[in-house]
């Protein structure tokens, strides 16, 4: 019985637009100007909305929120490449992608202010609500992928997001395994932002890359500079094409960085240095994309200023829309417990309404 090598695996890394704005022209995708400008706009809008929400949380105008600042390229670009038929199965740090998918900023504000109505969306959008249980949504994506295949739906992909921390959960591994076995049309995008609250990436897994985890499940995997919009474009497009054409799942590790706190309830100074954050600020996807557009002669300081002003008013308007909302009915929690009416729930609804009416008559 000879002992011999029976498998050999490698992991690729892709970067096309580096942090200084230099482009690898051999890998550079052909994207028309309209799309380039649209993607950039979504990223700027996402950043502005994020920053505004942090301020609003600080002022007590909304509850806890988790910023996605710094990760815009990693989630806006794949969302931009998705079609109407594709499914979006997100986690909680893809705010920009949700905007691309048609969620409004006013809705996001409602969500962060503690109202389920912030999740409401016509089913045709094929965009599931925020999933807070880390990793759980990846399995849902694979089930949806199975259903897409079962129904023989053509040209349809399922895109699911998770963080580096999520790759430690059992659900994540089960999802990759099922996707591989079923050859489900799923694109897994891991936003490796280097931190899971206070746990650094190197303590999350001993593996050198997260991308290599795909190998164990027989799925193509790649590590991409997640702050490089062009690399994200190429990798996402390839994965989406594969899924839509019956080629099965793909795993993308998008290497990025969470520039802000985990949520507004978190204090990152407890576990990471300012120097590290500053270092990553140099790799910020927004200025990088801006430089690229300038290099192509389709962007300049004047256009930037106009865009920033336009987006500021857009966010202002969304905040106003949110704050002008009339009060939502308190008893809405009784409306969607089951799809069928049950006497217990209706009885409790009446008790609840009665209690609201009586208020503090004994106080």
């Amino acid at each position, binding site marked *: 019985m000879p002992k011999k090598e029976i498998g050999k695996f490698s992991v690729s890394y892709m970067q096309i637009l580096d942090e200084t704005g230099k482009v690898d022209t051999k890998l550079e995708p052909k994207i028309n100007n309209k799309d380039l400008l649209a993607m950039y706009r979504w990223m700027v809008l996402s950043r502005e909305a994020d920053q505004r929400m942090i301020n609003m949380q600080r002022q007590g105008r909304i509850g806890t929120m988790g910023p996605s600042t710094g990760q815009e390229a990693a989630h806006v670009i794949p969302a931009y490449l998705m079609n109407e038929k594709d499914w979006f199965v997100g986690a909680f740090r893809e705010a920009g992608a949700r905007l691309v998918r048609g969620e409004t900023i006013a809705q996001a504000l409602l969500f962060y202010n*503690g109202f389920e109505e912030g999740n409401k969306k016509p089913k045709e959008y094929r965009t599931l609500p925020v999933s807070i*249980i880390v990793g759980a949504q990846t399995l849902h994506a694979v089930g949806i992928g199975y259903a897409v295949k079962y129904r023989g739906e053509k040209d349809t992909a399922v895109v699911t997001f998770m963080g580096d*921390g999520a790759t430690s959960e059992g659900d994540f591994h089960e999802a990759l395994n099922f996707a591989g076995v079923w050859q489900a049309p799923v694109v897994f995008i891991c936003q490796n932002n280097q931190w899971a609250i*206070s746990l650094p990436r190197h303590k999350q897994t001993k593996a050198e890359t997260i991308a290599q985890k795909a190998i164990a499940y027989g799925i193509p995997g790649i590590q991409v500079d997640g702050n490089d919009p062009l690399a994200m474009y190429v990798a996402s497009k390839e994965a989406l094409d594969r899924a839509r054409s019956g080629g099965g799942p793909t795993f993308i590790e998008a290497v990025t960085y969470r520039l802000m706190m985990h949520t507004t309830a978190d204090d990152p100074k407890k576990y990471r240095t300012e120097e590290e954050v500053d270092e990553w600020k140099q790799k910020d996807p927004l200025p990088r994309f801006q430089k690229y557009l300038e290099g192509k002669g389709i962007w300049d300081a004047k256009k930037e200023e106009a865009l920033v002003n336009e987006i500021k008013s857009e966010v202002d308007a969304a905040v106003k829309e949110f704050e002008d909302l009339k009060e939502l009915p308190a008893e809405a929690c009784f409306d969607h417990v089951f799809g069928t009416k049950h006497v217990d729930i209706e009885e409790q609804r009446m008790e609840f309404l009665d209690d609201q009416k009586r208020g503090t008559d004994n106080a």
Partner: protein
Amino acid sequence: MPKMNMVQAINLGLFQEMSKDDSVVVLGEDVGVDEGVFRVTAGLLEKYGEDRVIDTPLAESGIFGTSIGMALAGLKPVCEMQFSGFSYLITHQLEGHASRFRSRSQGDWTVPLVVRMPYGGGVRAMEHHSESREALYATIPGVKVVIPSTPRNARALIVAAVRDPDPVIFMEPKRSYRAFREEVPEEEEVMEIGKAQVVHEGDDITVISWGAMMRPTIQTVDKIGEKLGKKVELIDLLTVSPMDSITITESVKKTGRCVIVQEAPKNMGVASEIIARINDKVLMYLEAPVKRVTNYDVVTPYFGRETNYFPTPDRIYRAIEETLNF
């Protein structure tokens, strides 16, 4: 005696148990460098080092399953679920293994460990950060479920939990973490798990609660005394399972009336079990039906609607008044 809040009190209990017994280890998400998202494990890493205070990968089943192994090998793990809403990932290891090793091996193998988890609402947090699911764990034989309500009993009970020979689910009412301070003795204080506490005595009616609902209940009971001149016997359950039937039934025997205040939904709650026990043992002493003030049987609403969803002091007041007047 120094005054402290519940976070500091549990922290003190952990500190002291770790210094006494080097088999005690703490593990979980963000419990080390970050000192726990509520800072309950503050200072432990610095004092006891990485081998005893472990920042684990993000996996609840992993945290709990390895804790079972540690306990089988003689360590005493105190593991943390960052929020009880993420603890359902441990249920297969809890029901399937932690609760069963003792009986499966006829006492040869035991799993003395503690699972700490902040539970309950009232802190304006996101989905999964507000539920009260003690009943879920209380249905599993072989598992103890402890819920403190004040800094002092939290400290005395975490010590008892660490020393207990069985798996203990230790549910911390996060709303009470920093809500008030209380004198907590520096020197060792241990309370017995499985015992309820009569917080104050009275003859007219028994009122039972636990965890975060103790605060609004105490305030209401005071008001009942002032306004109606009635003497309430107030019981803090402290251990949900195994339940202290004796303290409950002895009290109801005396008062003949009882109201139970529970943060969790009504259906299959701990209050239901208390009523069943009263029914079993002291039905003939009752002068009024036992009332429960609970949450509704709806999916825990996001925080925008949570205030009205909890048992309010007004609902508690009305329930007590109606039971007194029955």
